[in-house]
């Protein structure tokens, strides 16, 4: 029994203007990983390597027990992949695409597809060129979801969707959580979606993995404090990611939050006025700023 949905070990690839550096990334089976990063951070490259579409210069990649890119044919029968730069054939209908996919994957569930069609508010007989961006994204997802892949890899599935369409997509992804055999990797720069659904957070920036952690402890380890600094000190406190000062008020951000971090701050001359948790988005920004 393999216990990982996928595993990337020491994966590197070098391009003229971009380098993916010694990436180690793995996802336990039955779990959801959110891949976060700014545009150009290497999310798509990572995902393409995982799908066997790009061969890394070095390192090992396994998905569902298959070696990639060598066994990509067998792997792709069980992996579902959709990306925001993926388009369907404009001159054909969604029904044509569903028939095409069904002729390839025996597991394609026609009843589930019909159900998704209704929930995504799509028409099977409509030609792809008449669809809006959101409808096209949903059509792509329908084709992938209806075959119930063991591993779902989604590159920016919610980018450019209106709030209603996004909610429809997220709610279908949430249904996958019911099955403890199915795993999901999805990238997004919408941290909100990732914050809700993922069990693990992977942070990429400039081709480097900044963080790979379970979401709950990750969110918990960050905190923001509004403090009053009485003395004119440029005091520092251990574990601070950033300290911004204006007059007597200072904002301290830490990634090593514990019950008594506030006490530590007091001891270092920061009088804590308020403390807050941080959203993934705020952490994202602070983390990227720190690493650069």
């Amino acid at each position, binding site marked *: 029994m393999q216990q990982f949905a996928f595993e990337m070990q020491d994966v590197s690839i070098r391009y003229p203007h971009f380098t993916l550096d010694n990436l180690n990334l793995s996802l336990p089976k*039955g*779990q*959801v990983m959110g891949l976060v990063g700014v545009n150009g951070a290497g999310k798509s490259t990572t995902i393409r390597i995982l799908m066997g579409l790009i061969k890394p210069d070095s390192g090992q990649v396994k998905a569902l027990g298959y070696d990639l890119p060598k066994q990509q044919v067998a792997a792709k029968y069980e992996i579902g992949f959709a990306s925001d730069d993926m388009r369907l054939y404009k001159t054909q209908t969604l029904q044509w695409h569903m028939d095409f996919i069904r002729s390839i994957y025996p597991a394609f569930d026609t009843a589930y597809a019909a159900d998704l069609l209704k929930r995504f508010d799509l028409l099977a007989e409509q030609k792809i060129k008449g669809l809006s961006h959101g409808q096209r994204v949903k059509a792509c997802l329908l084709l992938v979801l209806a075959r119930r892949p063991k591993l779902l890899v989604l590159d920016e599935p919610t980018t450019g969707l209106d709030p209603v369409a996004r909610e429809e997509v*997220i*709610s279908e992804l*949430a*249904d*996958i*959580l*019911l*099955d*403890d055999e199915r795993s999901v990797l999805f990238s997004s720069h919408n941290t*909100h979606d990732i*914050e*809700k*659904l*993922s*069990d*693990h957070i992977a942070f990429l920036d400039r081709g480097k993995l900044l963080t790979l952690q*379970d*979401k*709950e402890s990750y*969110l*918990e380890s960050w905190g923001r404090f509004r403090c009053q600094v009485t003395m004119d000190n440029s005091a520092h406190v251990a574990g601070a990611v950033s300290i911004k000062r204006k007059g007597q008020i200072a904002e301290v951000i830490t990634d090593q939050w514990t019950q008594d971090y506030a006490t530590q701050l007091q001891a270092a001359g920061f*009088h*804590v*006025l*308020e403390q*807050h*948790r941080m959203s993934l988005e705020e952490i994202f920004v602070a983390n990227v700023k720190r690493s650069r």
Partner: protein
Amino acid sequence: MSYGLFLSTVDKKPMYLQIVEQITSKVLIGDWPADMPLPSIRELAADTQVSVITVKRAYLELERAGVIVTQQGKGSFVSARADLNQELKKQELEQQVDVAIELARQLQLSDDEFVQVVQQRLR
């Protein structure tokens, strides 16, 4: 199927805490009676559209607080402890006091001053 939890992402409280509080209040008001089986972690995760790890964490907290009991292989149930109601109300009181203490800190009251405020209110 819906379990009637209403989670908000703009709430300052973490997601798992919202689940803990809402399940606790369902138990407190008796909507979820003693021995009632809880939805499985994955069911609740799919229903509320939050990650499995978050629900798992909430269930652990609920177990620690004695609101639910988990039996290996059978799932989780609402605790049948006779004094559960009492206990939960006590916990809620403690939480309210914590909020008051937080406010006092923001007002930069010393602990003695805070106790004085409480004593005044008690009279």
